[in-house]
């Protein structure tokens, strides 16, 4: 317990970094994911190919490589981002690809007939999407979206490769300084706490959305 209090300030400083990457990624990747998923249904084949290529690259290569590429690779080509920004950009474009696939699944589960009905009733395409399709999609995708969010909590630990000090690195430092595994145990508990909070929040929103099922 004493030891925990001793290293807690460092772990909390690392936690700040973890949470920063986490929230900015959520905020950035959800809208981008929706746009990408709509693009997949585009009438222009070049747009569809472009987006499929993007998703293929993002899902087909390790996030760790993408981080290295965004920070060091683009840096060599003259596009330099600061460390934190580079991490957030890499996470957003990666998670947007996964989320887009989830949203696509949601979009496809809305029956064709609803679009036709909306058109007969005189809804514009924008109105149909925002008033009829999107509310149903949100409800459908919550469980799989939650899965990705929980993955994201843990994936944030990859930022170590571009020298950012997240909570796992803080644990690493304490472990190598004090030659003990206890810091890892504490880090694990903090991750569990974070995922517990995320799980509860998702359950609640799921329940609330179920009202009009």
């Amino acid at each position, binding site marked *: 317990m004493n030891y925990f209090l001793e290293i807690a300030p460092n772990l909390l400083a690392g936690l700040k970094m973890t949470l920063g990457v986490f929230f900015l990624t959520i905020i950035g990747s959800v809208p981008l994911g929706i746009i990408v998923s709509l693009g997949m249904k585009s009438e222009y084949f070049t747009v569809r190919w472009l987006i499929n290529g993007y998703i293929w690259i993002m899902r087909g290569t390790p996030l760790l490589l993408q981080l290295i590429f965004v920070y060091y690779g683009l840096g060599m080509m003259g596009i330099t981002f600061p460390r934190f920004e580079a991490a957030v950009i890499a996470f957003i474009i990666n998670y947007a690809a996964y989320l887009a696939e989830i949203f696509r699944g949601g979009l496809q589960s809305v029956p064709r007939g609803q679009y036709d009905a909306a058109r007969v009733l005189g809804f514009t395409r924008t109105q149909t999407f925002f008033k009829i399709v999107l509310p149903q999609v949100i409800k459908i995708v919550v469980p799989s979206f939650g899965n990705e969010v929980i993955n994201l909590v843990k994936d944030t630990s990859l930022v170590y490769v571009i020298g950012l000090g997240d909570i796992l690195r803080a644990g690493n430092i304490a472990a190598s300084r004090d*030659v003990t595994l206890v810091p890892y145990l504490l880090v694990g508990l903090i991750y569990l706490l974070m995922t517990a909070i995320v799980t509860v929040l998702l359950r609640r929103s799921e329940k609330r959305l179920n009202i009009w099922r």
Partner: protein
Amino acid sequence: MVSMKKKIIVNSIVGLIVIGIFGWLAISLNSGTKNTSQNAQKSTKTDDWQRIKRDKQITIGLDDTFVPMGFRDKNGKIIGFDVDLANAAFKSMGITVKWQPIDWSMKETELNTGNIDAIWNGYTKTAARAKQVAFSDTYHQATQVLVTLKKNNINQFSDMQGKVLGDQTASSGDETFNEHPKVLKQYVKDQKVIGYDTFDKAFTDLNAGRIDGLLIDEDYARYYVAHQANPKNYTVTVGGFAVDQTAVGFRKSDVKLRQAVNDTLTKFKKDGRMTQIEKKWFSN
């Protein structure tokens, strides 16, 4: 439904943009690799010493898990032998040091992309590294030693016959181990070594008996053995590895910066400040 004409126009515009991006990527990637190879040749062209002196700040990269060279104390402050030495050296030049934690396997990339100005963190001179960075004068010497459990009775490198060895990935010890296979590599099991990212994990495995020996720099060996529950349980074997020269790594173009650091290190060696800092970190 969109008209055929509109479809063709949008498709070709998007197609052209994609081709444009790929073309630009290919060109800049190509020139990027050229630049790095050119950097080595046109050495005095871009010297960052002026900028460092003007800003009165230098960014040094370190792996903040490297005890006792550079690590964090419980308050999160970066401390260590190299940290004291570098801070003192640059302070005498009126420059403050900004310590930037980096991933150790990315250190040369960090340096050559300009994210950091120097690698000063128990950085050992090797032939492979010398191709990418310019080293300062040697300021510290250490050799690679073998740490084993006393009960296993391993007292020389040849006792490692058929035993499992661990070391740190991308460390100079790992490089030395592979370059001089006769010294130790020929003995260990399958001529392979288990690579760990940090030594504390390697020690955990050594204690658990999953590896029989650990190849480690003697400075780290001393620190880690001293911090184990029972330091008497370990044998530290000095074998036939050459002594490692620890130095500071700079970009090849930063000639003036390197010269300034070399001068300061020489001064420190003469006036005893070097010994003072060494005593503080290595006398246990």
